[in-house]
């Protein structure tokens, strides 16, 4: 491993440690310490994003490593946003734990500082399409963590009020995330039409992104019915599972490598 890769992994390792500390402080309700650690981790995380940008010469959204680094950057700004909305810090540790988990994943990826932007990626839609999808993935990850915590609170700790608050907050965050996912899906169609002539070609990544979108559509509609609302947790988990397939499985399984989106791998 060369020196620059060691330096990058060092930055990532430091960020993971600080995100984890932010999470611990947050659950202990030491919010000032949590914010300091969260901000410090974010600065290290941002450094890696900047290195990727300088190395590639363009906004770094071209491979899984780039995208994961940007995804983990999303958590701090949105934790601030929801802190202002809620006028409370209690969501902070959930954002920190999500950032930590995703950043750990980057330790198993190569930074690929020699990535170069292929002609098909040279489009106005490159940044908005990828960025909006990543923002939605980040928010849906936090929503799912809140849902899982709600299930624990309800079934194991027998705290129904706490569980309801967590579940309602999860739903609100998922609703907030949905326009970004929708924008990512539809801007991808516009870009595909501009690049290839067809806005939809049933590429495996496109199909799974549509499955994910539909999963969340079902989740939101079921949440508004009285009779079927009891299923909304299961539906949200299924929708997030589809999201993970779209984001990870499609990129890594060899069987899926014939798709149009693999130029971005």
């Amino acid at each position, binding site marked *: 491993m060369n020196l620059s890769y060691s330096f990058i992994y060092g930055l990532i390792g430091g960020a993971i440690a600080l995100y984890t500390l932010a999470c611990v402080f947050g659950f202990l309700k030491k919010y000032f310490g949590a914010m300091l650690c969260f901000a410090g981790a974010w600065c290290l995380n941002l450094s890696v994003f900047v290195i990727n940008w300088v190395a590639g010469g363009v906004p770094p959204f071209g491979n899984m490593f780039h995208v994961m680094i940007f995804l983990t950057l999303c958590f701090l700004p949105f934790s601030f946003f929801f802190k202002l909305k809620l006028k409370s810090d209690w969501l902070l540790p959930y954002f920190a734990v999500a950032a930590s988990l995703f950043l750990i994943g980057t330790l198993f990826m190569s930074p690929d500082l*020699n990535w170069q932007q292929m*002609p098909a990626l040279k489009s106005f839609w490159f940044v908005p399409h990828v960025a909006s999808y990543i923002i939605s993935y980040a928010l849906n990850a936090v929503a799912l963590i809140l849902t899982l915590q709600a299930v624990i609170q309800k079934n194991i700790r027998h705290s129904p009020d*706490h569980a309801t608050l967590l579940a309602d907050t999860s739903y609100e965050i998922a609703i*907030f995330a949905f326009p970004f996912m*929708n924008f990512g899906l539809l*801007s991808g169609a516009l870009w595909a039409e501009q*690049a290839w*002539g067809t806005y939809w070609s049933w590429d495996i990544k496109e199909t799974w992104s549509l499955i994910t979108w539909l999963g969340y559509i079902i989740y939101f509609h079921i949440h508004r019915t009285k009779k*079927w609302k009891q299923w909304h947790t299961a539906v949200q988990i299924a929708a997030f599972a589809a999201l993970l397939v779209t984001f990870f499985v499609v990129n890594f399984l060899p069987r899926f490598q014939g798709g149009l989106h693999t130029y971005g791998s």
Partner: protein
Amino acid sequence: MRIAIIIFVILFVVLLIGAIPFGFAGQENIFYSFIFIIPCLALCIDLIYCAVKRHFHWRDLGFLITHWGIILILWGAFLSFWKGTETQFKFPIGHPIDSIPANNEKVYQLGFQMRVKDFKVDYYPPVYGLYELIPAANNPTHQDQYTFLAALKTNTAGLFVDGYGQVSLAQLQATGRIPAWQSLLQLDQKKFLKLEQLTPSSYTALLSITDDNNQTHEETLQVNHPLSYRTWKFYLNSYDQKDQKYIVLSAYQDPGRWLVISGIWLVMISTFIVCIFGKKFFKQKKEA
């Protein structure tokens, strides 16, 4: 609402069946068949019913635009599927054509003549892999006797190799070849450079188009910059990467295109209205 949910679930299951990798031929059997089209038609009818049933109020504007937007997308997609024309073909450089092959072995007459007057590929500076002879090697001429050390990006001066020195751009370039870079360069008995990555930064075709009045004009064609002429739209997909003797184009006639694009923009904007701007978040502000 419940009917819509049932339709969504049916579509979800059909999409899952089409996406599971039992071979990509399965997608054609599922997504272009009645198994998928009928639920889409049912969804369209249900969306129209929901949109019409909702009495108009300004607070429901986002809801209405979203639903009508999806209806437009579905109508446009049906129209494209039913009446659209698409084909992909190899276009030899320098040879004029006035017809293009269809997917069913027929031809489409263009009504004008096209010729690729020029085609150019620009590349990023190449990335070379530096390899060193392994200590126990007994055959220095064999590539698998070398171990990979580093990936080196070329710049305007060439590239610098630790323990060897500067390799100039002239040493790396190879004339009379496509691409014009050395694929292998022996530095000394212990080290060599191998071309690992040569990425096109852009490729451009210059087309000459002659109409039936013998008026000729030129158009450029690049990826993400399609060419519209008469009822056709041409897209540059690829090219002959070995000898650059042909380019690969897609050609479309799509009557549903503007419906779909309009629907897409309506849904993209209105979803933000429905989900974010028209909503009051976190009515409960309790501490967890």
